[in-house]
């Protein structure tokens, strides 16, 4: 049986912004002044967030997801590896997914190879190793020219994986990171190496690089319409070109969920946190209002071919997730799913059935959402949504992807 894998993703937003933040500031990223940090109110925040992830492990999620952002209020994780290290000691079963470190931002990718190998040992082989290029804001934060990002990323990933699989010391002669002594201690526990995940935003170039190495593709999008199904089909096609067969577990997506007893109650309880997240955390990232730093000529990481495809694509309304002002607009994007266990189950099932993606990375905590609400939603999800999704997806995937039946079952959560 191969049920969909359900992970809990925490972004660790800064929750203590002033009420009038949106009026006074053009972005929650890069230029958001750190004088807004309220040390007294923020005391204990990391503990609260870590404990929510530990709770996810206790509730039987397949893993906990962390990621890296710098100088922003969207995610207080400039170093996700520090939090992952804490999780290795506080959790027992779930995978620890770091999605990911941003090698183009660092001087030396071997630091990532070393820290990930440490995490894999410290967690008894539970690490999923993610590598990302870094977004527009990160280019500004760390002064890394966007056009160099992908070249550096792939050289770094290949060097890191080789440092895990090949005996050292060896020379590395790449143009970005030439090294005389590659000889990583410790070696990772998982053999030949931890599962590698790489995010992409539907460019064929990224899909090619991921597919030919047999890694997992994570679709970087917060909205899931027909584009997600298309991306899965495109990635399956690219894999096939490289002589590999797609299964739902080769791809992952981010969904956001809030579950309560009824649809109305779910909206009532999550409203403050969700709109704090949409208007503040996404300002500068996925919102027209304010300064948009994620995508564009100022952070030109897309190839010329991809940019041309973007200009040729039919024009969408131009609005982004953070522009949503009503529950109805939010629902259209199929990004943040709010409702009773049955409503959430049905919407997620429709998504799984349509897109046939097997790794669901789910955000439960939004913006300034209170601890007890995030926990309540996680618990209801784990007890009243996850079992049916696992059962139905295992049946569906078994029928549509018969080759899965020949494979070892994906490690089931306890």
């Amino acid at each position, binding site marked *: 049986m191969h049920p969909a894998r359900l992970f809990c993703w925490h972004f660790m937003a800064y929750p203590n912004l002033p009420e009038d933040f949106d009026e006074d500031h053009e972005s929650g990223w890069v230029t958001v002044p750190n004088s807004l940090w309220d040390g007294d109110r923020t005391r204990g925040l990391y503990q609260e967030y870590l404990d929510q992830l530990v709770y996810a492990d206790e509730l039987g999620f397949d893993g906990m997801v962390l990621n890296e952002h710098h100088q922003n209020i969207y995610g207080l994780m400039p170093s996700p590896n520090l939090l992952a290290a804490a999780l290795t000691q506080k959790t027992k079963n779930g995978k620890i997914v770091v999605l990911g470190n941003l090698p183009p931002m660092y001087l030396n990718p071997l630091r990532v190879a070393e820290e990930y190998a440490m995490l894999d040992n410290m967690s008894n082989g539970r690490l999923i190793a993610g590598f990302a290029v870094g977004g527009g804001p990160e280019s500004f934060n760390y002064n890394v*020219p966007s056009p160099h990002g992908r*070249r550096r990323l792939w050289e770094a990933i290949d060097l890191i994986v080789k440092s895990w699989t090949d005996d050292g010391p060896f020379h590395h002669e790449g143009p970005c990171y030439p090294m005389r002594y590659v000889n990583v201690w410790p070696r990772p526990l998982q053999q030949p190496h931890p599962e590698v995940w790489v995010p992409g935003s539907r460019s064929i170039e990224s899909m090619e690089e991921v597919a030919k190495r047999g890694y997992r593709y994570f679709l970087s999008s917060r909205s899931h319409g027909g584009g997600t199904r298309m991306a899965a089909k495109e990635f399956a096609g690219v894999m096939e070109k490289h002589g590999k067969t797609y299964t739902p577990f080769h791809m992952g997506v981010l969904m956001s969920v809030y579950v309560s007893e009824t649809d109305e109650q779910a909206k009532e309880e999550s409203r403050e946190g969700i709109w704090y997240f949409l208007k503040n955390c996404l300002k500068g990232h996925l919102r*027209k209002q304010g*300064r948009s730093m994620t995508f*564009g000529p*100022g952070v*030109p990481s897309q190839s010329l071919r991809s940019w041309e495809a973007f200009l040729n694509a039919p024009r969408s309304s131009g609005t982004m997730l953070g522009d949503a002002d009503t529950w109805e607009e939010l629902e259209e994007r199929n990004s943040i799913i709010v409702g009773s266990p049955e409503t959430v189950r049905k919407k997620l099932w429709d998504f799984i059935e349509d897109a046939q993606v097997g790794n669901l990375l789910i955000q439960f905590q939004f913006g300034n959402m209170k601890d007890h609400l995030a926990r309540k939603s996680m618990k209801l999800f784990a007890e009243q949504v996850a079992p049916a999704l696992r059962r139905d997806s295992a049946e569906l995937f078994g029928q549509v992807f018969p080759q899965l039946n020949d494979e070892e079952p994906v490690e089931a959560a306890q």
Partner: protein
Amino acid sequence: MSMRDLDVAGRKVQLFEAGEGNPVLYLHGVADMHGAAVGPFAFHEALAKECRILAPAHPGCVGSDEDNSMESVEDLTFHTLEVMDALGLDKVDIVGNCVGGWVAAQIASQNPERVGKLALIGAPGLFVSGSPIGDLFMAVQPRNGGIADLRSMLFADGEGALAQEWFPDDHRDKEQGMLRYQIFRCVARFGFKPPYFYHQKLRDRLYRFKGPALAVHGANDAFVPLDHAKAYADGFANGSVETVAGAGHAVILEQPDAVAAKVAAFLKG
């Protein structure tokens, strides 16, 4: 007036040519032919009445091949020397606008024997304490859906018709959108990372160029402050400044005839 492709060490470089007489190598910038339009502006047409303009598009701009290994202004300088080799230009007058001026100054300090006269227009490239270069990359990222910040960084009148015509808020016009993306992707390769749009050592190396050097600069340039033109003029052995009142960084668009007249007079003199 014509466009043709050059083979430069196996890479395609698109070259615009116009005019007759003394050859002048023209190196473009951001608000410029090859960066904002395929063909020439009034400025280039006016200058082409006085000399023969040879204007290559930088790597990745218009029809020139992109060079993914380009990581610094030295790489673009070397590439431009190769373009000069391919054109058989042993020694040539160079006019450089914006980042093209920076490259021209790099060539003049490094290979002074290859340059006759040197005219820089709104050129970055130097560190001038207290006069930081504006963040072009942040300015081109939409704010509230528009790029007014870019227009006011490039033009003295950022909301005027000229600025709106060349840099409209709608970045999805295909030709403009592609050209703009191309020039920004090219310039990000050597201008984005620290040091930002300058070379640490260029200022101390300018003295090697002994020929006539002119820095033309919009008095209201909000991208490269006017002090940078003075620093260039002071740095060269034989440098001078011409300020254009009422103009910004896109001075060749804002006052094409005045700038062309100044540059032509300098090249003739």
